[in-house]
């Protein structure tokens, strides 16, 4: 039996005919495969344990049906507690490797205690041609003055569905940088809902994707400002190839009382095929006057002028496309440890082979 879900819902609806109000997906309810994470890197001052029931954390702003699905199906449940005042600059890496026809539902609670610093990378990967289903919920609670980089790398098989949900609640002067990299999956969904409840709390949300073949990428980012002088910055950057399609929703939601808050949202999409479909829905919702919200988007193909310049230097259009793809992948590899950067190399070799990188 399968569950039909409206995932990645917009906080406010708009015209139905554009099919952007939500993404309908069908997830399997069969039992999960047995997959144990490979946990490496910095574990000093970080406690990791299994949890049977995890209902301690708030789930404000996220779709209840999605949460219910994850809670009902999650076979992998990990609670990661970063100790108070501990500074952990080296990354903690949670690596999940799936095989053909595997199904995994995961729940991660990340507790950043007061004044802690952490760098956590979660990776899920599978063979290029693998079928399967991955769904998760990562709940982050950042106490006052906590700081963290959370990176999620998704390299599921090209015939699979992958759905990564992150919710975060930030206390006074907490800062979280969340980076989602949904490269794999035939259907790839990613979402972040950040509740900036603390004074001067801040979140940076980055999404990087390369849509290829008939891949369907669906993104939903929501920054809810409750705390005064809270800040948010959402940046989505991607390249669409072949017959891929992508929908990106980004919302900055200023609630009454978040005086002095500011939010920025930007999106850059490079379209490299006349069969791609790109939808962008950048919302700013404002219930408070003493705020500053900005959004900018640029969607298009390679500009003729730089292309002309490159051609004048002997670089043809195909080579120019490769330069853009390579620069995106290099940027991603630079922020990942060597073993995960190698996975990006494999992805490049196996999935983007038509682009001759």
């Amino acid at each position, binding site marked *: 039996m399968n569950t039909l879900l409206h995932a990645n819902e917009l906080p*406010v*609806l*708009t*015209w*139905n005919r*554009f099919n*952007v*109000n939500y993404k309908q997906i069908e997830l399997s309810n069969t039992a999960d495969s047995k997959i144990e994470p490979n946990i490496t890197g910095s574990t000093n001052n970080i406690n990791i344990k299994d949890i049977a029931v995890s209902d301690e954390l708030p789930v404000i702003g996220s779709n209840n049906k999605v949460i219910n699905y994850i809670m009902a199906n999650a076979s992998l449940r990990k609670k990661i507690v970063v100790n108070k005042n501990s500074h952990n600059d080296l990354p903690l890496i949670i690596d999940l490797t799936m095989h053909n026809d595997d199904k995994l539902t995961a729940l991660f609670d990340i507790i950043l205690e007061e004044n802690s610093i952490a760098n956590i990378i979660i990776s899920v990967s599978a063979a290029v041609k693998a079928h399967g289903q991955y769904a998760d919920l990562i709940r982050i609670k950042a106490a006052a003055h906590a700081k963290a980089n959370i990176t999620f790398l998704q390299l599921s098989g090209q015939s699979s569905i992958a759905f990564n949900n992150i919710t975060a609640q930030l206390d006074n002067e907490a800062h979280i940088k969340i980076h989602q990299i949904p490269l794999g999956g035939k259907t790839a969904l990613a979402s972040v809902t950040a509740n900036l409840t603390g004074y001067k709390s801040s979140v940076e949300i980055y999404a990087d994707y390369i849509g290829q073949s008939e891949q369907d990428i669906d993104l939903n980012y929501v920054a809810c400002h409750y705390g005064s002088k809270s800040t948010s910055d959402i940046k989505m950057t991607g390249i*669409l190839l072949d017959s891929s399609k992508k929908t990106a929703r980004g919302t900055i939601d*200023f609630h*009454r009382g978040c005086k002095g808050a500011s939010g920025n949202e930007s999106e850059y*999409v490079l*379209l*490299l*095929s*006349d069969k*791609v*479909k*790109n*939808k*962008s*829905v*950048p*919302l*700013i*919702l*404002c*219930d*408070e*006057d*003493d*705020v*500053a*919200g*900005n*959004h*900018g*988007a*640029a*969607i*298009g*193909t390679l500009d003729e002028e730089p292309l002309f310049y490159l051609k004048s230097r002997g670089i043809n259009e195909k080579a120019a496309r490769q330069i853009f793809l390579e620069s995106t992948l290099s940027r991603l590899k630079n922020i990942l440890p060597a073993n995960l950067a190698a996975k990006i190399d494999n992805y490049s070799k196996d999935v983007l082979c038509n682009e001759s990188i």
Partner: protein
Amino acid sequence: MPEVLTKTAPITEINRSLYDFTKAEKDVEKLSSGLTEEIVRQISAKKNEPAWMLEHRLKSLQTYNELHIPNWGPDISELNIDNIVTYVRPNTKLSANWDEVPEDIKDTFDRLGIPEAEKKALGGVGAQYDSELVYHNLQKSVAKKGVIYSGIEEALSGPFAEMIRKHFMRLVPASDHKFAALHGAVWSGGSFVYVPPYVKVEIPLQSYFRLNSPGAGQFEHTLIILDKGADLHFIEGCSAPKYNVANLHAGCVELFVGENAHLRYSTIENWSKNMYNLNTKRAKVEKNGIMEWVSGSFGSHTSYLYPMTILNGEYAKSEFTGITFAGEGQNLDTGTKILHNAPHTSSVVNTKSLSKSGGISTFRSAVTITENAHKSKASVSCQSLMLDDKSRSDTIPVMDVRCDDVNVGHEASIGRIDDDAVFYLMSRGLSENEAKTLIVNGFANPISKELPLEYAVEMNNLIRLEMEGGIG
């Protein structure tokens, strides 16, 4: 920062005396409230219209009954069609002479400045009072060029009947949404304009719609067809007195812009604050044609208003310039839709929103680039200004791009008046209120400079009245 800047006085309600006057309903003919097949047949019978139109009305009624109210946008659950009178006929006939218009109706349009504007700056005027046109006139110099400007019902039985049949509700089908279907069923009044090939109408034409009857709906239909190379500026105005019951406006505007033609359509919407303004406007632009919208939304209780442009021919262009000012009790959901459906088409959208005294202003837009629209460009810019901490302002754009060699840009910003700018102006001798009014006028200036002078003055007055005594 000086203390004075942190204190704000309550903003007063706009002085609407220019628009907010009522006239007794003398000998008017009203159909029963509500929407039934019998009412639709009665409206059709009164107009002695062709059989196809009755058929269209009845099909639209069926569509209305099948469709749901939108699940997005402002709440309109308090609008009950059973309480709306869909047809109110004033006791007069359509005339081309103001002296033949009944005194109370003429006085209404006099107070709104319509006959005076006609003398000074308009090539033709249509004036609708409740459900029927009461005045329609076109200057002889314009008529000599072959321009047709008449009541659309009158034109339905004339030499342009076939042209109207081929265009009526083809851009806005009844199936578009529930209130387009309602319009199709009970439409009444409105204007028809035809500009022949390569004719440039030097001075604007204007239609003014006045709804006087409490609890009534107004459903006028405006159909404008510009043949190839034609050029026209059309102005639309509308107002109503305020009542304690809901009024409804569900008009429809269909604009056909031929090859190399140019149409500018300017509107200052100033309905009373008991009005549900659920209006539909759409333009189709052929090769090298240009469509320009200038839209000011100041009135109504609730608005759903998104003029749409379909760029259907190569190198067709559109420009949308809009301003929305939502005050106390208002929920104005406005914006635009652009469909790029041919190569090398381009569109520019530039809007401003203001909200104060608990008003809600929403900018909603959609830019669609179809698979055909290679080398097209679209640019959307929307800026919102919050004038106090009781109001709300939302920005909800959608971009749907389906081919690669295009350029789509979007920028939006929301904020409040900069304290430093107010402080600077006050240091130059302005009061806080004057400083803020000056800044708001500057914010709106890119829009007002696109309006005809009389309308720009009216818009600046509306802003001044909204701001008066409000922020000092």
